């Protein structure tokens, strides 16, 4: 069948294709294959880092749905993660519930939390909505603090969570977790990619691009905005629950506003409105502190005074938020797209098709 080029989609079926370019399929298979073989050749620490990336990516995909696709900015993502983590803590400590019960339960709590936090989006948009999610974040953290201080009798100690097991398999050790998280993330990614091709996904993008026009097209704004909040918080909650199991500890200090901002940094650096961007951004921001640490190893000793490494690690996230917003607002995904276009058009140097920037 003759094609009108990769960027022009001429039929409904074509517009629904995910991997349009033949080499993309090869690339995806290659990446998955490498990922499967990786633990055999790399150090345990690197596998641990990748696990952290996978965990972050699940949460980042959630935020990407809400902010990148539906255009509703949320500063309460850490709150959603906390919901998942604390559901896990409460269920495993008090009820000794197994992993396969806790994870769906965390997802359901995420649904409820997303619904509640999403309610203000029916009345506000823009700045006011962002501030109301911020308020929700503090409300959730307050509840978590109260629970934790009642439970442990001391605010500083966290709640310890035993290693989970699925049936006879005990999820323990970096490599076991690696395969589990890899499978889980692949599943979540496929769900997200497909979600964007269905009615809700298209409705979200319409709402993001112009909510009044979307409403005029017959999209039920209230319903789809709430759905976006629910999807986002469900994914975050699952991610929070897995994090709790992976790190074996739940503590309220982990769920600060800074964590929510780190997730925002992931989707900005990755690129708003791109699933690939969420994955790239999650990996970039998760590995950033370790990268900075490595760079500091090479610097003269006098530079490493006191807490300066920590300070730089904190500041780099903010710096990257600013730099990407100013100079590359569509993020790493756009850089990747430009590279693709360059090789596709080679040896001609047409300017790549600009996507419309609002």
């Amino acid at each position, binding site marked *: 069948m003759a094609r009108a080029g990769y960027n022009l989609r001429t039929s409904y079926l074509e517009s629904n294709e995910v991997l349009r370019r033949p080499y993309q399929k090869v690339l995806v298979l290659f990446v998955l294959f490498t990922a499967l073989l990786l633990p055999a050749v790399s150090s345990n620490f690197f596998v641990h880092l990748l696990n952290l990336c996978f965990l972050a990516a699940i949460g980042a995909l959630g935020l990407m749905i809400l*902010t990148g696709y539906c*255009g509703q*900015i949320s500063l309460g993502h850490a709150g959603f993660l906390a919901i998942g983590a604390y559901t896990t803590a409460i269920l495993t400590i008090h009820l000794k519930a197994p992993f396969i019960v806790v994870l769906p339960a965390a997802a359901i709590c995420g649904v409820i939390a997303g619904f509640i936090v999403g309610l*203000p*989006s*029916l*009345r*506000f*948009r*823009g*700045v*006011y909505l*962002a*501030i*109301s999610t*911020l*308020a*929700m*974040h*503090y*409300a959730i*953290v*307050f509840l978590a*603090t*109260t629970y934790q*201080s009642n439970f442990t009798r001391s605010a500083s100690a966290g709640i310890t969570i035993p290693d989970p097991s699925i049936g006879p398999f005990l999820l323990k050790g970096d490599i076991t977790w690696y395969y589990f998280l890899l499978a889980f993330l692949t599943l979540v990614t496929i769900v997200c990619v497909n979600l964007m091709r269905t009615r809700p996904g298209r409705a979200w993008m319409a709402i993001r691009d112009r*909510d009044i026009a979307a409403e005029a097209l017959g999209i039920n*704004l209230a319903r789809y905005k709430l759905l976006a909040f629910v999807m986002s918080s469900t994914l975050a909650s699952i991610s929070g629950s897995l994090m709790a199991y992976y790190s074996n500890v739940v503590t309220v200090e982990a769920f600060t506003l*800074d964590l929510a*901002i780190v997730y*925002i940094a992931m989707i*900005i650096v990755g690129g708003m409105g791109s699933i690939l961007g969420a994955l790239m951004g999650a990996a970039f921001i998760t590995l950033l502190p370790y990268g900075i640490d490595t760079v500091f190893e090479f610097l003269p000793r006098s530079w490493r*005074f*006191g*807490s*300066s490494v*920590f*300070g*730089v*690690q*904190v*500041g*780099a*996230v*903010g*710096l*990257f*938020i*600013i730099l990407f*917003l*100013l100079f590359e*607002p569509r993020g790493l995904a756009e850089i990747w797209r430009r590279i693709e276009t360059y090789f596709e058009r080679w040896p001609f140097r047409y300017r790549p098709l600009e996507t419309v*920037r*609002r």
Partner: protein
Amino acid sequence: MESAATVLISTCTYALLAAGIVILYKAGRVVNFAHGELAIVGGFVFYSTGLMSDNSLVLAILGAAVFSIVMGSIIYVTMMRRVVGEPFYVAILITIGIAIVLKSAIIVIWRAPRLTIDVGVTPAIRLPDGATLSYMDLASVLLTAAFFICLFLFFRFTRLGIQFRGTAENPLLASQRGVNVNFVLSLAWVIATLAATLSGVLYGGRAFLSTESASIGLAGLTAALVGGLDSLRGAVVGAFIVALAQYLTVRLIDPVLSEALPFLILLLVMSIRPWGLFGTVEELDRV
């Protein structure tokens, strides 16, 4: 009497912060999430220039003023001016980025986990029932009052102030009538940073400065929202409400709750009267 003094003094801190947030919102429809950090860094600059120059007040004030002017104009010229016309979240997220960078600057440059300043702790005035006010408290109240009076006079009577109000009303029309909009907007950032620095200096004088104390910015934001994001008068009233509520929770209910309290007030206000007490209804970006 003592409780009244405590509430009054926190009102001053919050009112200054809220004023800065309101000015920025009016000028460019930007909500500044970095205001607490600006305040704390300003406070650090003030006290460390003071310490370095043998407690010279003049040099400390000069240092803080230079910091505010440079910082405010840098933020506007290098970042905020470039994102005009972008989606609303870009400006907000940039201020969040600035907040993080400032926080890390505190860690890298000053290193000290917290800075406590010993100034004017000796009681200056004894109130009738045994309560005392320190010089710092007195300075807080007087300087805040002076700041608001200057602001009022500036917006009301000076040519620049009128240009400022015109820009806030409609930047395009203002620029067509010959107002230098870029200058006015960078001035807004400078004034807001000055207010933040002043509030950081006053806050540092009676509590302590650290990366954690940057959360006063969020209390200031709440105060601005309670009063109405586009109303300076509202900023003062909002600050008073937040300070009073915070004081009452600490005394009567639970100190832990006071952390979350500004946001509970926020949720309450947003569900009942989202445009704030003195804000204009049309300003609200509603669905």
